[in-house]
């Protein structure tokens, strides 16, 4: 499990993550939701050791993030950030190969190549393996990055807004894939999402943040209540049942 204990992060005078204690990363998919500036990405940055907390402790399966060697953590925890701009021209295959770096340090074994092939196949990228990343559509590129994370073969997978700028079709495609990764491969996926309906449909557990604090943490269905959602987003939200599924209405 990923355990945070009294974690605080400040930027200048502003507290972005405020004394958060939470344990997540159980089996299945956990969605992290909340308005912009709630501290979701910062929390990911802290767990992924991109940022150092000003106070508190973070541990992944008992390994302290602050003191465990980086490559050791990289074998247990994969993090995909929001913006993945690459200056060099890489092919899909090149990118997925990087996922093996924590295991092989760049010298690929037969075992590594199997993982790469499996990840490419799983993300349905066989036809694109030799394409350059800048020749792919947004959805395909996102899949390529997820394939890299999958090739990393970690127990925990953290995805920061993987649905950014994706249309309906690609959005559902990625979410179904995340679901499959959890169900078939036993990955423990934690994903930052903006659309609460997507979160309710695909996640087992939802953690809601606001102003740097965790304000709700429960099974998806329990979060999908007008009062809870209105408090999280500070805006009126209506929840209706459609075909047995709670759907939040917040337009208009």
């Amino acid at each position: 499990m990923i355990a945070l204990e009294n974690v605080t992060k400040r930027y200048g005078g502003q507290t972005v993550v405020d004394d958060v204690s939470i344990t997540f990363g159980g089996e299945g998919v956990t969605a992290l939701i909340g308005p912009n500036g709630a501290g979701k990405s910062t929390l990911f940055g802290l767990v992924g050791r991109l940022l150092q907390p000003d106070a508190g402790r973070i541990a992944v399966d008992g390994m302290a993030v602050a003191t465990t060697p980086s490559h050791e953590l990289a074998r247990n925890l994969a993090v995909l950030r929001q913006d993945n701009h690459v200056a060099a021209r890489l092919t899909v295959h090149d990118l997925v190969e990087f996922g093996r770096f924590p295991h092989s340090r760049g010298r690929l074994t037969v075992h590594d190549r199997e993982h790469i092939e499996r990840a490419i196949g799983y993300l349905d990228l066989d036809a694109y393996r030799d394409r350059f990343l800048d020749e792919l559509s947004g959805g395909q590129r996102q899949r390529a990055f997820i394939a890299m994370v999958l090739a990393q073969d970690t127990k925990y997978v953290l995805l920061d807004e993987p649905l950014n700028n994706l249309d309906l079709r690609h959005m559902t495609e990625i979410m179904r894939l995340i679901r499959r990764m959890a169900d078939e491969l036993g990955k423990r996926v934690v994903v930052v999402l903006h659309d609460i309906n997507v979160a309710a449909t695909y996640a087992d557990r939802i953690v809601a943040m606001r102003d740097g604090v965790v304000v709700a943490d429960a099974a998806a269905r329990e979060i999908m209540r007008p009062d809870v959602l209105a408090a999280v987003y500070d805006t009126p939200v209506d929840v209706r049942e459609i075909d047995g599924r709670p759907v939040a209405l917040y337009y208009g």
Partner: protein
Amino acid sequence: MLTDPVPTESGALPAAGLHRTRLATSWAEPRVRLGVLGATVLVLTAVFLFTAVPGSLSFALGIRSRTVLAMLVVATAVGVSTVVFHTITQNRILTPSIMGFDAFYVLISTVLVFFAGSAGFLGFDQLTLWLVQVGVMVAFSVLLFTWLFGGKRRSIHLMLLVGIVLGTFFRAFTEWMQRMLDPLDFQVLSDAMFASLTRPDETLLLLTSGLVVLGCAVIVPLLRILDVLTLGEPAAVGLGVDHRRVVMVLFLSVSVMIAASTALVGPILFFGLIVANLAYSYAGSFRHAWTLPTAVLIGMVCLLGGQLVLERLLGFGGTLSTVIDFAGGLFFLYLVLRKGAR
């Protein structure tokens, strides 16, 4: 761009279809590309060394081989450091000169001429001068680096920005001092500030080669980590790269190599921009195991070719760095405009 067949004359031959495909496939191989480049450098070196010998061959060879070694040292230092710098900063239109390296070198020399006069400047022991220049330049970059990257702040962009500001300050200060120089002193100084590859001092050449070899020895084991750094800091950290330590080591090696080669031949960093960008499109792979040697060899082709044209065709009408700065300027413009068009 990688799979483009090379536009050779063989393609124009009738019934050469199969041959052409094979040629095109092998041309896509980074190995083949690097090999062709290496062969070109060897040919140019041979032409430079053995043709147009005015008198004794052994005498000419002695002087010329020193020039070739100086070129190799400079091409390595500038090519490797620029490519590494691009990877660290995730930006391909920068050169390490943005950190004020060149400007600082000119400032040091100007201060020396200002206080010691041109006679004193020319009378300095070459070795001491080189040591002072290298020492001060490395110290400057280490300071800048530990101040803006080593501490809690650790922002590459902030470091670059401060580098630009300092570079501008150095240039302004240099200009101000140069205005107060005696015209003769100024003449001596401007001559010294044109990069010159011919007739380098033997001891300095060896010392510089040593430092450049040392820099490369540090960088070579990090080649695969450099590849990961092309993904950017967040992804590299996620893949278990100790980003801060690695960037620190790389940056220090880069500064040592640049300082040594600048102190040997003068400011020539602009040249790195051309070489590195040509290398990216030529190498056929993004991997540093290919782009770094490609950059070095392209640097050799430029320096050898430029020197040959200048010396043999134009009859030594100017210094090589003028040609390089002119070509580099045009190329830079092309890069910026092309980036803008995208």
